[in-house]
């Protein structure tokens, strides 16, 4: 008797946890989807959805770090960093497997440095993150135009395509990369000084400084990481698409990365959240999108529905947080 009421309490507490809500919604959509259109929850389809989600999930990783770090942190340039990563990757590697490592390094250096510029703008020149990163988006477009000169970009090398889409045990390579990334971030947040400092800074900037955190430096670095993670994702995305057909290719990642972070239970105020939650958030968003496609909701209606559902979720979380306070 006592035991059952305790489990009940645990279940109820679970439903206050955004990650659990998101996970629950995932199952709900899979269930309904499979009823409406049998096969929706099949292994193959789920894997496909996961593949698309993995790119969102990776980009959201950088966004996650920035939002955790507090100070109204936000990176609205990640989408363009994805595009830039794909384009530098294509241009440097020239479809040759031998130049792949070089291309990856070029992507990492370029996007990390540009990300740092975001960080310096935010921390040293006190430009609001929203304004700074939006401006960076415009700068990156100019850089992209300069690199491509308006001509098409070479696509992915064979090896890159194989790494991303080639299957081991029925699971494409990109998902292994995503899992490794998730494990890495989880370790980073739970077992490293970096993680402790980041969370402290996101919770209480002043107290963090007094505890020995170099707040400005750390926050600047975060923008560098976010840019670099998005750049690498773009590079990997190239392997998935095999060619860059459009220079607005990464744009959709910008907002969706923010949404995945929030839906996954990370507080926009900073200092609270887990990457597992973010990953589930990314999956949930992709799942919702596929579901709406499956039940033949057309593009414009889909966006309306998408927006509404998100608003509801965010309101729910907002209320939870207020209640906790």
């Amino acid at each position, binding site marked *: 008797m006592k035991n059952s009421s305790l489990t009940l309490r645990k279940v109820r507490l679970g439903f206050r946890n955004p990650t659990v809500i998101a996970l629950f919604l995932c199952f709900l959509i899979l269930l309904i989807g499979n009823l409406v259109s049998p096969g929706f929850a099949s292994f193959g389809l789920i894997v496909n959805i996961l593949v698309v989600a993995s790119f969102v999930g990776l980009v959201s990783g950088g966004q996650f770090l920035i939002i955790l770090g507090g100070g109204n942190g936000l990176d609205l340039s990640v989408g363009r960093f994805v595009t830039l990563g794909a384009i530098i990757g294509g241009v440097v590697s020239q479809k040759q497997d031998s130049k792949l490592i070089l291309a990856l390094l070029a992507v990492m250096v370029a996007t990390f440095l540009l990300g740092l510029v975001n960080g310096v703008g935010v921390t040293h020149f006190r430009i609001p993150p929203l304004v700074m990163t939006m401006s960076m988006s415009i700068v990156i477009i100019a850089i992209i135009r300069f690199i491509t000169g308006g001509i098409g970009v070479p696509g992915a090398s064979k090896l890159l395509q194989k790494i991303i889409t080639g299957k081991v045990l029925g699971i494409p390579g990109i998902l292994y990369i995503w899992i490794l990334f998730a494990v890495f971030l989880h370790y980073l947040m*739970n*077992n*490293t*000084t*970096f993680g*402790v*400092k980041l*969370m*402290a800074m996101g*919770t*209480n900037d*002043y*107290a*963090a*400084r*007094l*505890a*020995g*955190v*170099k707040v400005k430096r750390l926050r600047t670095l975060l923008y560098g990481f976010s840019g670099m993670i998005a750049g690498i994702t773009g590079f990997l995305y190239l392997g998935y698409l095999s060619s860059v057909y459009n220079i607005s290719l990464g744009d959709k990642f910008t907002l969706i990365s923010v949404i995945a972070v929030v839906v996954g239970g990370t507080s926009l105020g900073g*200092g*609270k959240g887990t990457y597992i939650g973010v990953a589930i958030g990314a999956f949930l968003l992709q799942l919702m999108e596929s579901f709406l496609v499956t039940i033949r909701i057309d593009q414009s209606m889909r966006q309306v529905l998408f927006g509404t559902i998100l608003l509801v979720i965010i309101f729910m979380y907002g209320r939870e947080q207020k209640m906790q306070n």
Partner: protein
Amino acid sequence: MVVCKATGVSKRYGEVVALDNMNFSLQESEIHYLVGVNGCGKSTLCKIIAGVVAPDAGELEIEGVPVSLMSPNEAKRRGIAVVYQELSLIPQLSIEENIMLGIEPREKSLGLVDRKASTETALHYLGYFKNVLPLDEEYVKQTVADLPIDEQQIVEIAKALARKPKIIIFDEATASLHKQQVDAFFSILRELKSVGVSTIVISHKMEEITEIGDRVTIMRSGKLVNTVAVKDVTGDQVIHMMVGDKELLERKRAHMDFKDVETVFQVNGLTGKRIRDVSFHLKKGEILGLGGLQGQGQTEVLLALFGSIPFEAQSVELGGKPVDLSTTVKAMDHSLAYISGDRKKAGVFSERPIFENIIISSLIKFNRKVFSRKRMNEEILPLLSQIRTTFGKLSDPANSLSGGNQQKIVIGRWLMTKPAILLLDDSMKGIDVGATKEFYDIMHTLCDAGMSVIWHSSEDLELLNNTDRVLVFDSGQIVDELVGERLNEVELYRAALDSRKKHIAVE
């Protein structure tokens, strides 16, 4: 007449029992002290009375009427006002807006806020503190975020008074106040009593009870120990009831002579915001007090030495060598540690686990990049029990701890960095008598082993009993140095006020 009665109240948070079949009753127009060690359930009881926490079991009666479901609004309607331990002002609003929040006077014609009446009312309720605050219309227009913590506390008190309550609860309202402010607070308590208002006062300052309390309720581990009339007990008896059989360390510092001891720290001509040409030295193993009236630059000196506010100095020398203390990390590298008593603003990471709160600074100082939680726990647990911290799990967020236990976590954080020079800034705020004595003892032991301390406290007795020498501050300057025979209250007050008298005489 009993105005508030709680019977058999219990409350648990997961594994932690905050209240266990607690009984409490409050008489009309009495000043009722509620005491007990950190984490014994005082704040929880008050929150239940105020309707912000729902009890798991037990009954609540207000003015003889049972209340089945107390909500914050219900409590307000029944005339209950609370000054919470963790201040809850809105930092972006002005003093006036905070005090008048939700009770703004309206003008007749359009129903807009009557600014003038609002200012007047705010000033009226702050008026009790007119001797310790520069009260005028400009003052109440200041943003709360810019106020020092003692003034924020006063605003919080005025805010509660402005609600014209019949029952008012002060949860450690005097913890951040200095002597003169406490006196003003007592005059409020007396006035409330004379007009029939009942008050519950929580405090760890035992001498307050005998000075102004009518009755005192002692709690231990969520249970009632006893409720007695103040005139029937002594302070020692109260403390004994609080801590049970645990023996209390009673050790005053034998003021030592440091003449022949080496100087570890030497500061010359320190100047900065609110600091004017401060020079002093610190010997190895010495405890140096920074005294004087509140807010005379003592905190700023500590913050400057810890690299948190900019300063200029002719020289700053550690062990005879000039050092750069311009950033906090540099100060930490030289084994300085700073413990603020303002835990909410400068100490605790409230939503983060206790674990992270306590290890952060030692990780940084000892340059450890990664750690294993298990190994860390082995290091932390003995320390936490040594400083008598009660908690559920190390992974619980810091804000699940009682106020005093949160402060202990901050102290633990810095003890873990093995400091050579410890800067204390009212660090014992909110910590119960037993644990405070424990800390004094830890401090003295560490000093015997070679640590040195610079200690600022708003409690003069704390300073006088625990330091070897006190520098008296006034307007950012050192105006006197008390050693040996002169280390007593009379000398301290005289020194703190002396230079003021001279000022007045000149004017």
